[in-house]
């Protein structure tokens, strides 16, 4: 809240209009407060719950400002001691990172081909890529389930990594294609004159320049892969191989009579911290990637 008030009192707007200024400031202050409360309150309530002792969690009226003796780390300690929660985090990291790398490694060359080399039917391909971006996971899981069964890939991370890479390919291709189109063509021409063939030119000249765009799309791919639920639920049933979303969701289902709110809250916080860090460090790139993918893409 203090942040919001600071902002309200700070100078506003690019084009100052003296008579409107106070009204504008007040409106902006309310706006900022709205954004901050709307986005943070639900998450902060979960953080608070995760640090409260059970008696302070299950009580009416709710405890908003707990006393020191109502606070505890027990839920976190139990989370990592009684369950392989660290393992779930590592599983998610592994699957998401691998899927991201595969999406980039296969998407970047395809994006370059679509941007620069005149492939027949290019427009149709781009349109297909655009439409495919919209498919929800539920449309794909039946067919993939059969493939996973036929290839005996149940409880094998390939059953997650390939679909995640695939789900991220459209966005990767669209964002990188836009990027390649903006690269100066002279650069590649002079590389060709210097005797590079296409692949050499791609790896030595184009790729190093593409790193920022790769990071942008990579972060989006990582977030999508980390958060995916339906494939992870269906294709991986072995306890020790589960990923964060599924493992966390199933804590709630483990007991019918008493729902363990403290542990659930701790699990939601611990399982989302890696993503919170990603957002903190890469906010700008996420915004760039989303807008490039959806608007320019």
């Amino acid at each position: 809240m203090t942040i919001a008030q600071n902002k309200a009192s700070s100078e506003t707007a690019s084009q100052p209009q003296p008579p409107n200024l106070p009204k504008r400031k007040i409106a902006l202050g309310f706006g900022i407060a709205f954004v901050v409360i709307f986005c943070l309150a639900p998450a902060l309530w979960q953080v608070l719950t995760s640090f409260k002792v059970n008696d302070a969690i299950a009580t009416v009226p709710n405890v908003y400002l707990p006393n020191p003796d109502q606070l505890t780390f027990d839920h976190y300690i139990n989370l990592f001691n009684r369950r392989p929660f660290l393992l779930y985090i590592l599983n998610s990291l592994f699957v998401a990172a691998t899927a991201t790398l595969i999406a980039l490694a296969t998407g970047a060359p395809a994006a370059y081909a679509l941007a620069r080399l005149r492939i027949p039917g290019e427009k149709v391909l781009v349109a297909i890529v655009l439409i495919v971006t919209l498919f929800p996971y539920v449309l794909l899981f039946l067919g993939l389930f059969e493939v996973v069964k036929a290839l005996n890939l149940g409880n094998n991370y390939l059953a997650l990594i390939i679909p995640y890479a695939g789900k991220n390919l459209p966005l990767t291709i669209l964002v990188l294609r836009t990027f390649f189109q903006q690269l100066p063509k002279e650069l590649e021409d002079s590389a060709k004159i210097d005797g590079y063939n296409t692949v050499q030119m791609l790896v030595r000249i184009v790729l190093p320049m593409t790193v920022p765009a790769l990071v942008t799309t990579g972060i989006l791919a990582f977030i999508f892969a980390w958060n995916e639920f339906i494939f992870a639920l269906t294709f991986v049933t072995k306890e020790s191989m589960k990923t964060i979303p599924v493992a966390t969701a199933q804590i709630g289902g483990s007991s019918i009579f008493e729902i363990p709110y403290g542990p659930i809250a701790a699990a939601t916080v611990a399982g989302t911290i890696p993503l919170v860090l990603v957002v903190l460090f890469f906010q700008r790139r996420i915004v760039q990637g989303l807008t490039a993918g959806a608007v320019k893409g």
Partner: protein
Amino acid sequence: MKLNSIRQREQLTGWLLSLPALIIFILVFAYPIGRAFWLSLFTENLGTQLEPIFTGLENYARMFGDGRFWNSLGNTAIFTFFSLLLELLFGIIIALVLDQQFRARGIVRTIGILPWALPTAVMGLAWEWIFNDQYGVVNDILRGLGIIDSGITWLGDPTRAMFALILADVWKTTPFIAVILLAGLQAIPQDLYEARSIDGATPIQNFFTITLPLIAPQMIIALLFRFAQAFGIFELVTVMTGGGPAGSTETVSLYIYDTVMRYLDFGYGAALIVITFLILIIAVAIAGFILSKTDVNVTGEQ
């Protein structure tokens, strides 16, 4: 002659560069969708001992008389409509705020996209707790305001459960719409506003005559993306209500998942997937048609 062979070589390289992506595309998208179309013509369930028996369009005929399907379709439509409506409204407000100049705008933008980045399944649990009947914070606030005397049921009541789902979804995905609209806002030249201000237009008039029409393309794109996601909503519902109470929040995707994974009715599940797919394609076609009437560049063609 030489030029021609250079072009051919370029094309070959292009195809080779696209090949790995193409293989993944076929495996992850083309095959599952194609397979769903094919399988939807067969009956393959426990009744046929999971052997596919060709029954033509019987699965589609069955859909007409399937109350649970229509119920789930209705639920999905209600969920999608109200989610999108509220998200668009809040999305515009948030985008307008984030477009202003103020100190620590970076921090507020970071906060603004945070809900979008967090796992839906995990945050569904957070919302389940927020709407808890006994100790939930929503009931506590309503009691504090004197609106209710004692805690009311949220996720156990058909209408209120749907409301809770919509609110959770609005929280989760409004940031996405806001980010897309923000890009639209930033592309509007400032002198448009200045010119209008000289004519004596108020900021609110400016909003309706300049801002809204100019960000309309971004609104359509954001809504299209969100339509597809909301229509396929799965984990939020699974985690928060499981489709209950009594199927009152069951969406099409939950019904598809149950049909396949619980009743092992593969043929019928495939038919349900085909119908959902076709609804999406129609939505894309409509959005594409509207966008073609505006001058925004969706495909990135110059």
